[in-house]
């Protein structure tokens, strides 16, 4: 589904953030990308999601070569992914319902159909009773759950979370990870970036979990 072949990334005026990485992620995988800050986790995720193009090598996503995509095709590639950011990237000028509605509007899903799916997504993360609340009134954990609702509302095949638990205490973090595991259970490919593997991993997850550990832009076993 996602295939990296000898992929490097260098930002202008900087050393190579990613050095000749190769790996493959299959549909339904649960992948943890681990590594210290600055190891290149975010860059890797951005290349997976089509937010960055590689400097060298090939990135195949669903048999599409990202380097060869026209920039007009990039938005459609991005719609395959549900993105969860460390800083949520919620919009604070609108309520929870409208935040979750954004990806659907972008996909051209409107009206009744959209309302149904937005409520379903909010229900899944336990925020249905807060649909009219503004995101600023939510706790950190709730905001991250709202971000998850927004990421999954358009039913993406791949869910990418960049340090989703970075700013949360352990209880909340387990909570958030639980949601992400649940999506993997129903066939969604889940990719999570984190400093390290979580301390406690449920047994059923432990068996299928894959780890990509990055060190100075290189994969280590």
């Amino acid at each position, binding site marked *: 589904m996602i295939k990296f072949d000898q992929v490097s990334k260098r930002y202008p005026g900087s050393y190579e953030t990613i050095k000749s990485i190769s790996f493959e992620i299959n549909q339904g995988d649960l992948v943890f990308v681990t590594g210290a800050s600055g190891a290149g986790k975010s860059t890797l995720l951005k290349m997976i999601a089509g*937010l960055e193009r590689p400097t060298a090598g090939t990135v195949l996503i669903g048999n599409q070569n990202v380097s060869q995509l026209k920039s*007009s095709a990039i*938005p*459609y*590639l*991005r*719609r395959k*992914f549900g*993105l969860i950011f460390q800083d949520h*990237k919620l*919009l604070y*000028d609108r309520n929870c319902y409208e935040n979750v509605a*954004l*990806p659907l*509007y*972008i*996909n*051209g899903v*409107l*009206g009744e159909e959209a309302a149904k799916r937005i409520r379903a997504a909010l229900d899944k993360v336990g925020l249905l009773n807060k649909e009219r609340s503004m995101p600023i009134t939510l706790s950190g954990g709730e905001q991250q759950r709202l971000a998850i609702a*927004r990421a999954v509302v358009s039913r993406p095949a791949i869910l990418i979370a960049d340090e989703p638990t970075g700013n949360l205490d352990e209880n909340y973090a387990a909570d958030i990870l639980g949601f992400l595991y649940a999506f993997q259970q129903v066939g969604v490919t889940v990719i999570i970036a984190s400093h390290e593997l979580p301390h406690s991993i449920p047994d059923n997850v432990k068996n299928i979990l894959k780890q990509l550990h990055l060190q100075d832009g290189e994969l280590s076993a």
Partner: protein
Amino acid sequence: MNQWLKQHLQPLQMVLGRMRQNLLGTVLICCVMGVTLSLPEILYTIVDNLSQMTGSIESKPQLSLFLKMDAPSSTKDAIAEKLKKHPDIKTYEFVSKESAWEQFQQNAATADITGSLSKNPLPDAYFVTPKDIHPESVQRLQQEIQHWDGVDLAQIDANWIKRLDTVIKLGKKAIFVLVALLGFALIAIVGNTIRLQILTQLEEIEVSKLIGATNQFIRRPFLYAGTLYGLGGGIAAWLIVLAVVTLFNSSITQIADLYASQFRLSMPGLWVTLTMLISAIGLGWLGSFVAVNRSLAQIEKL
């Protein structure tokens, strides 16, 4: 089709909602645009009214031949014969002193004067339309006819009309320049307004792009905003012109009555009004298009 409509209605509703939230700002922008647009419109209204007024008067040069008061009918016939044969003359018309006097009495503007005169002071006259209306050849013809027997005065009419015509042409040019300059100003006003709105919504645009919004999707609400500002500005301009025309007419009525004239400023016609409105909308759209494209290009560079 339904889907397409919804995709346009949704951003339109969003934009209208935002405009309602910031009603004062929206009204002010429309007023700024209205004032800008109304300047050429007012000038147009004045020039158009003036040219309509001159249009009702024959604006082609004519020669008036006033015969000597004591000219016998044989002289009149001789002149008629000469006029008929003259190669440079297109048409001519004889107006006898009696019929001229009658017209004079019927004309509202001069009826008061005729009442105070005891006898007809008007001479017989020929009104001549030359073939060649070039000022120099008309003048040559006038000098020639002036020396004919029995002609008291050969006079070129419509000189003042020609001057007014020149002024009107100048006015039309001024409108063109004003339209070009202010059209540019309008694009800048809308563009800047939209640019500021984009800045306040930068986060939204960035997030939208991250989760797969096309540029079209991001542009749409801003283009609607620009178009609506254009519409609002166009309507404001029309209202300003209406107010100015009404204000001026209250004074013009007094002056025109003194000259027994029915002259009033009239509002621009339907087609002109529609053209102005559509241009305002178009300029609003163009301004926001330029602004949003510039911003999108900048965001993509990040």
